[in-house]
């Protein structure tokens, strides 16, 4: 079944919502496709705890003519002007005149002994699951990693009654002071920082500090933290650990969009190197909600042919790009984080490939071919960003190794006829090898 749109937006986070709403104002048939049950992306997940900005934009989306395809995962671009998606188990073809990619970002995870234990999660990961219904009242949580997300997560979890034992930021204090100096130019962010500080009062905020081991029999029980070569143990229920964000580039790369310094290259009105394809939000540079909203608006207006209005907004976008650089510098990873993983520590969680096995290889391609690293279900989404940091492997090679389907789908949804079906052991999955799975 094929659905036709003048403008199709992929991703219903802030950038995608702003893009769809802005484009829909121009009497265009606009579609918004997203793989989660609800719009909002990661940052606006969970309607109960939404900010004023989130409520404003989601109300505008609710009041718009945008066709919403939630729970729909784009996995292929079979022809120019067509995307293929899996929606609730069924395959759909989505054709478009203009495409806006607002695929967002994910966390960078770094491996350390014990990081595969249940209840060791991403910082944003635990936050997302709590927003999706997990109660944390009375639970002891260590928040670790790098970036402003740590404070936001700690504040939110504390607000839900969790006991935040420590917030461990890997960056040294001087790196953060520099970032703080930049923030003074953005009063709204300073105010937010003060709110986070108040919400997490009582939790220790440690800089130059990170987890080196997690222990537990079948789930997390204790974490060993290190600061200035001093180590200590914290007993906790959850470790929420993420090392800032990396862009979701699978779809932009599949479509052939040029990258620049690891992000999708665009012009002032968010046009990529591919005709009729725009990109907005984190894939063009990690810059947070406010920038994502502006980029979304620009892309939506430009895609709808309202170039003059888009160009006007482009000025206020330029003024905010300094924040992208400040954030990048604030989250530069300490090289000592490369030494936490032991030879036996798993780096690829899908195929259970260890650090020791990987470091024998010269690059991502060799490692993939020899060890199956990055060839499991996540297709390198987790281990790729880790390998880039741990081994200095070429990020461009890691990104370009993605092949369709960019998400595993049942074989029955792959072919042109959709008739091929293997029902005996459940549907066979393409995009991954399930042969070794113990499931």
């Amino acid at each position, binding site marked *: 079944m094929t659905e036709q749109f003048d403008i199709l937006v992929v991703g219903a986070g802030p950038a995608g919502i702003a893009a769809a709403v802005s484009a829909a104002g121009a009497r265009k048939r606009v579609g918004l496709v997203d*793989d*989660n*049950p609800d719009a909002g992306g*990661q940052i606006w997940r969970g309607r109960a705890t939404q900010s004023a900005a989130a409520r404003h934009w989601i109300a505008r989306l609710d009041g718009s003519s945008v066709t919403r395809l939630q*729970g729909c*995962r784009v996995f292929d671009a079979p022809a120019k002007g067509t995307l293929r998606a899996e929606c609730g*188990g069924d395959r759909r073809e989505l054709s478009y005149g203009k495409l806006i990619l607002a695929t967002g970002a*994910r*966390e960078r*995870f770094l491996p350390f002994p014990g990081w*595969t*234990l*249940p*209840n*060791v*999660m*991403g910082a*944003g*990961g*635990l*936050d*997302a*699951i*709590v927003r*999706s*219904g*997990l*109660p944390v009242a009375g639970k002891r949580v260590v928040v670790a990693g790098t970036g402003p997300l740590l404070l936001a997560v700690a504040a939110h979890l504390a607000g839900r009654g969790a006991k935040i034992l420590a917030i461990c930021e890997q960056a040294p204090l001087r790196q953060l002071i520099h970032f703080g100096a930049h923030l003074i130019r953005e009063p709204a962010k300073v105010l937010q920082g003060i709110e986070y500080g108040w919400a997490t009062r009582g939790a220790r905020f440690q800089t130059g500090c990170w987890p080196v081991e997690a222990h537990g029999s*079948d*789930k997390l029980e204790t974490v060993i933290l290190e600061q200035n070569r001093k180590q200590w143990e914290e007993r906790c229920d959850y470790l929420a650990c993420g090392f800032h964000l990396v862009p*979701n580039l699978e779809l932009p790369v599949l479509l052939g969009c040029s990258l620049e310094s690891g992000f999708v290259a665009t012009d002032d009105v968010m046009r990529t190197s591919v005709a009729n394809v725009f990109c907005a939000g984190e894939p063009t540079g990690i810059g947070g909600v406010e920038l994502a909203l502006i980029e979304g608006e620009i892309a939506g207006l430009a895609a709808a042919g309202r170039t003059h209005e888009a160009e006007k907004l482009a000025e206020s976008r330029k003024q905010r790009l300094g924040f992208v650089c400040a954030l990048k510098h604030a989250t530069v990873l300490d090289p000592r984080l490369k030494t936490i993983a032991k030879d036996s520590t798993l780096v690829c*969680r*899908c*195929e*259970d490939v260890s650090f020791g096995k990987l470091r024998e290889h010269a690059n991502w391609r060799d490692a993939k071919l020899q060890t199956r690293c990055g060839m*499991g*279900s*996540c297709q390198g*989404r*987790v281990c790729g960003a880790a390998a880039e940091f741990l081994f200095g492997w070429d990020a461009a090679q890691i990104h370009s190794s993605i092949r369709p389907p960019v998400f*595993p789908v049942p074989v029955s949804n792959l072919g042109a006829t959709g008739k091929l079906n293997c029902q005996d052991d*459940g*549907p066979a*999955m393409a995009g991954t090898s*399930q042969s*070794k*799975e*113990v*499931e």
Partner: protein
Amino acid sequence: MHELANSVTLTVNDISVTVAAGTTVAAAMLIAGVSTRRSVIGEPRGPLCGMGICFECRATIDGVPHQKSCQILCADGMMVRTL
């Protein structure tokens, strides 16, 4: 059991779990205290990313294997199974 209008009850590995409407299956599995899957070498795993990219939260939901439980909402009578 007292049933709230805005709650749903599902089964996770034969454990009955009642959660608020809008709760994802991944959250319900954590509430039930079950790990989501066993890895290739047999380690227990739980959700990592919470947003549909890591695939650690896969489970069999209503007979369909390899479902990303963090992106699926709980429904009354839903049957969730892991190893």
